[in-house]
């Protein structure tokens, strides 16, 4: 008190200040709440529109049958199948590289200039527009490596798009594991690799999984990377799984949507909305899987 001396405000002034502070806080909370509801409303509007317009088109028949009558009838199975194929391969390529890259960055790279440069480069890559990856894939995989427009070129391109993001999310998840846990493992005489593989990674698994699945499903919904590397507008072919499949282009949901809309009028609106909803449900289903796995992992760990 003595410190403030006569400059200390009296009780009435202090009370006035308190009132203003509380009012200020209420106002900001009001703004935040409004914005929150706006975002929720927009999301609901988006999902609602797609649901209302797309649901009438969707049936088991629609999902599992081939397009017919110049795509004015029938289903979208080849496109759904193509998206699944693209995603599975992307996941298989992204998982090891993303994981190992993330482990290396988090545990071995240190904080030197080299590591910082690398980290910045990867962050830049992770923020690069997907069309750039598409063009790169076209130049390198399709043309230079002569893979042609093919499933394989699509896998590589989509993996290239996903890996930087997964490297970063994996690194983040590993860094979020408390150091005391790492200390505990080291003090038990575990090797560096055992510590990472048997203690750190299982502890970070929920975060690692989230990053991986969110990224790969995002990749599965992207049209630009496969635009020039893997995609064809539509297909009515039966699939015979084999090496040949890798070299063939694939029809898929996002590109089908883009092209179907662009060529306006050919595909009935109802089918386009149905495709839209299918793509959304496809991504949602995979995310749901991820959530289930994550919840289990978390429950097992107890956090």
């Amino acid at each position, binding site marked *: 008190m003595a410190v403030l001396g006569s400059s200390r405000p009296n009780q009435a002034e202090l009370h006035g200040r308190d009132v203003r502070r509380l009012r200020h806080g209420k106002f900001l909370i009001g703004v935040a709440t409004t914005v929150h509801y706006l975002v929720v409303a927009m999301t609901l509007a988006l999902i609602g529109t797609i649901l209302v317009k797309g649901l009438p088109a969707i049936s088991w028949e629609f999902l599992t049958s081939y397009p017919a009558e110049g795509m004015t009838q029938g289903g979208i199975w080849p496109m759904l199948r193509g998206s699944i194929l693209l995603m599975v391969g992307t996941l298989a390529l992204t998982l090891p590289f993303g994981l190992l890259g993330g482990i290396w960055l988090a545990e071995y790279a240190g904080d030197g200039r080299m590591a910082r440069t690398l980290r910045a480069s990867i962050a830049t890559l992770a923020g690069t527009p997907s069309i750039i990856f598409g063009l790169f894939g076209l130049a390198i995989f399709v043309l230079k490596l002569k893979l042609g427009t093919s499933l394989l070129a699509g896998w590589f391109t989509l993996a290239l798009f996903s890996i930087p993001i997964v490297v970063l999310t994996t690194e983040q998840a590993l860094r979020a594991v408390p150091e005391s846990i790492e200390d505990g493992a*080291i003090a*038990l005489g575990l090797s560096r690799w055992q510590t990472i593989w*048997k203690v750190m990674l*299982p*502890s970070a698994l929920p975060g690692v999984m989230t990053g991986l699945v969110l990224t790969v499903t995002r990749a599965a919904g992207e049209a630009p990377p496969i635009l020039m590397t893997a995609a064809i507008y539509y297909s009515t072919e039966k699939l015979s799984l084999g090496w040949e499949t890798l070299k063939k282009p694939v029809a898929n949901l996002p590109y089908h949507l883009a092209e179907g809309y662009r060529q306006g009028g050919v595909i009935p609106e109802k089918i386009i909305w149905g495709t839209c909803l299918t793509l959304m449900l496809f991504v949602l289903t995979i995310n749901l899987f991820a959530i289930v796995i994550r919840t289990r992992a978390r429950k*097992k*760990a107890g*956090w």
Partner: protein
Amino acid sequence: MVAVASPVKHAVRAEDVNLYYGTKHALKGVNFAAPSRQVTAMIGPSGCGKSSFLRCLNRMNDRIPGAKVTGKFEVAGMDPYAKNADLMRLRRAVGMLFQKPNPFPSSVFENIALAPSLHYGIKGSTLEGMVEETLKRAALWDEVKDHLRRSALELSGGQQQRLCLARMLAVEPEILLMDEPCSALDPISTGKIEDLISELSKDYTVLIVTHNLQQAHRVSSQLAFFMLGELVEMGDTEAVFESAQSEVTRDYLSGRFG
């Protein structure tokens, strides 16, 4: 030749230990010896270097960037700082209990089973037996025997610390380093850990860092007083408490500073 009789066997010996964190001189010429199968307590005001010294012995200081250690060591018959030192072997022989319980975010069973299964390839019923045995030694078995598959993070703080103790014992070390193991625990949990320490000292060499003078008095037979990076005094706990050689030690023990 004169035979030098050495009635006491030392599990830990350290001569002229210096530790630097960057430019900070954290330990200054410390000479230390801890007899086998006894409890040696290390006390001293915050920042005096007692924890740092403990972490030299199993080379946990390696994990701190810029840490540099010099001196002669013998820990569990090994030289931790030998050029070809096997750090994994060292840390199997020298367990460590930390200030805050740090169980792995996995089940109670896995917490204990992980290290022995990785180190010694123990599996199946042998492993189960070992988990039970170590949990009993840590006086935790009765409380967790029905929840071995539950997450260790669901246990209370005191239980978690005893789990960490069991986890350490499962590796079959010779020396147990404890870095203020009770500082995050309530008095009842602290009492349980102290009872365990006394029990364990029959089979293990225990080095415990503590801020709690009463605790040091209760559990230890040897006492080392650190101050400003130096080992000021070391001797039988009773003797040091009764009549410390150095005035600084006497002042500290009488609570004149802390």
